[in-house]
């Protein structure tokens, strides 16, 4: 009889006890705020009991990953004070001792992970936040644990800054252009000089020829009649 009363009390009291453990502004609880419409727009899903169950399950999953020794269950995640905003408070109770709340700091450690800014890298156990977000198709901004700041991604520092590469290409092309133009200018000048020298040589040859033929061609050649054929068509 006593056992039955105790069992009844336990069955009734436990949830009630659990409810008292979870309160808004609880010292060991976190508030979660979910913005599905902002994240997914037209493809937003309804937030209902099933989604809440999934949340409890993922939280239990996160706790299990972090505290490998203890097996957490969905019952260990207690949720209360849901609003239309879709925000609620949750606390985590220890699987062994239902009255004991897991401290805030431990819950934070279990949840925190790299932010979703970088593409997923299969790494250590600090990936829980990423997995939680993915389960709901949300991001750090739309699935907020108020009080837990997402840790910032380490900046990706490539060995050579990309701008230096482009700069190298451009300046290489420019140098090539300058050298090409200067060299071609130089060659052009040399060809001109050579051409002029050859013309000078021709002049000398012609003069020599005049004398060699024996006839004195010192007189001025009268150009007045050179173009005769062209003009006199009358």
């Amino acid at each position, binding site marked *: 009889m006593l056992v039955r009363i105790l069992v009844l009390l336990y069955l009734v009291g436990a949830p009630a006890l659990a409810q008292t453990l979870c309160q808004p502004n609880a010292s060991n609880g976190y508030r979660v*705020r979910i*913005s599905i*419409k902002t994240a997914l727009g037209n493809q937003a899903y309804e937030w209902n009991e099933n989604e809440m169950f999934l949340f409890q399950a993922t939280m239990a999953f996160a706790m299990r990953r972090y505290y490998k020794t203890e097996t957490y269950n969905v019952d260990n995640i207690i949720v209360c004070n849901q*609003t*239309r905003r879709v925000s609620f408070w949750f606390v985590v109770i220890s699987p062994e001792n239902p009255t004991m709340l897991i401290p805030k700091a431990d819950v934070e450690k279990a949840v925190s992970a790299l932010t979703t800014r970088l593409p997923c890298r299969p790494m250590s156990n600090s990936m829980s936040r990423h997995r939680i977000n993915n389960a709901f198709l949300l991001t750090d901004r739309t699935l907020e644990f108020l009080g837990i700041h997402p840790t*910032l991604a380490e900046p990706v520092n490539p060995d050579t800054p990309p*701008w*230096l590469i482009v700069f190298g290409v451009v300046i290489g092309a*420019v140098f090539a252009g300058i050298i090409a133009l200067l060299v071609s200018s130089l060659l052009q000048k040399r060809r001109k000089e050579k051409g002029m020298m050859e013309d000078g040589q021709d002049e000398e040859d012609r003069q020599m020829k005049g004398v060699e033929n024996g006839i004195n061609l010192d007189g001025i050649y009268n150009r007045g009649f050179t173009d005769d054929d062209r003009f006199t068509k009358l």
Partner: protein
Amino acid sequence: LVKILPNLGLGDRIPSHQELERMEKEEAGDRPKWDNKTQYMLTCVGFCVGLGNVWRFPYLCQSHGGGAFMIPFLILLVLEGIPLLHLEFAIGQRLRSGSVGVWTAINPYLTGVGIASLLVSFLVGMYYNTIIAWVMWYFFNSFQNPLPWSQCPVNANLTDLVSECTRSSPVDYFWYRDTLNTSTSIGDSGGLQWWMVLCLLCAWLLLYVCCLRGIATTGKAVYVTSTLPYVVLTIFLIRGLTLKGSLDGIKFLFTPDLNELMNPSTWLDAGAQVFYSFSLAFGGLISFSSYNSVHNNCEQDAVIISIINGFTSVYSATVIYSIIGFRATERFDDCLEGNILALLNAFNLAEGSIKEGNYAESLQNLNGTFPETIQSLDLKTCDLQTFLSQGVEGTGLAFIVFTEAITKMPVSPLWSILFFIMLFCLGLSTMFGSIEGTVVPLQDLNIFPKRWPKEAITGIVCLVSFVIALIFAQSSGNYWLALFDSFAGSIPLLVIAFCEMIAVVYIYGIDRFNKDIEFMIGHKPNLFWQVTWRFVSPLIVLVIFVFYFVTKVSSNVTYIAWNPSSEDFPTLEVLEYPAWIYVIIFILAGVPSLVVPGTAIFKLIRRCCSNKNVYGAEVDTVSAKVQMFTTKMS
């Protein structure tokens, strides 16, 4: 009748019409020539159309009454821009010489006008190419996704974003810190920034490779640099019109406010914009025109180029403001979204219960019932008009506002690359004219030995400019550039333009000029040209000059500085220039202006002392092959 000042020996110094015909037929080989008319037109269009069309005109248009600004702009374009352009083209084509050669031929005492043009081209070229260096830096940085100015960097401890960035914005931070690494005042030089030096080097080398052989190389380069901006503008227009909010921007730009026409500063700004936009008084246009054949129709060219310039200004204003409209709408939406989220979070309302449509109503209801909560939320006022009128000009527009807009577009790196290629081409084609206006007068003045090839002289000019332009690569470089922009490129140009008109109309003689034009293009210039050349254009330039001079002299000369530790950060701090800057201002604005009378006085003194006949051909300019008399001892 116009009284012409006595001008002895003019006929000896300039080629006569018969000599011009002869030179035209024989095609004197030494003087450079355009390969075809297209090259000439593209070069002139490129010189005139520059960064000012893209980032100065849209701002002026929007701040002076939108569509109404077109009225003073077009009126002054016709009364001031076209006559001055025609004048420079005609005198260059007639006298077949660069700026020093032309003014010396008109009267040896006017050499100062040419030298002033040389100095202004040199000083303006220096800082203009630095802007191109900045454009190249942004271009180099556009080849990554996400763009470096789209998000704030993380600080050294990896605990939070850099505070200077979070307090201002990622684009501001990238411009003032990553690009310029700006100091807090002009006196604090802060040393050379190595990445800026590299970009500056690249800019000058690129300019050198294009100007190496004068118009032989620039004539080829302009096929790309003068046409590509129009292609990019069209692409941006199409892209812009498909973005949300672009039509708001265009409407905002062109909504006329006719009251602005009563405001004298509207007309003065329009006049100044027309004047600077045409790149007059640099000497480059005279030089380019002198490579034409004698019978080229310079009147038609002047009108066509003016129309193209005006059209480009309006077109680019449309494009810019479509993108600014998009950015303003994005900002407005973000602001509103932030407010709505704050309300939803504070009152635990369901998502979607407050939307843009019922925001004002909901806010009123909530304010009625929970005023203290609303107060504590500290909601921002979101006004689209405010965001639209954040229209900035100059480097702020290109490197802050527009880059921010680009980060919000899909495939941002592509748009960034296109935008900065366009700015680069606009700037480079203007630099061609600037280099021409520097190198040719140097050759005319025989500063360098004649047998030195053009490549060497251009190289020296580029090298010296690069070394001096290293001031702009310091931390305080931005402030120095603003200084150069305000003083080197404003007052001296107005002085030179005024002197040019007086020289041609009253010293060379408007009658002789009219006959020259009749000889060149076949008909005398009509009444419009006569009236504008003699009275209207000089008057307009004089009025603008007086206004500028009085404003600059009477006001406290201040500049704006980026100071993270100032109270109003991120608003720029207004500082006064230190006393020693006034010396620099005098060098920039005063020296080129004073060179005009100074050279005349110098020559007068020299003539009195040496008793030689100055009116003979003592200027044997390289750029004009004319039979000259030797100096006669009187």
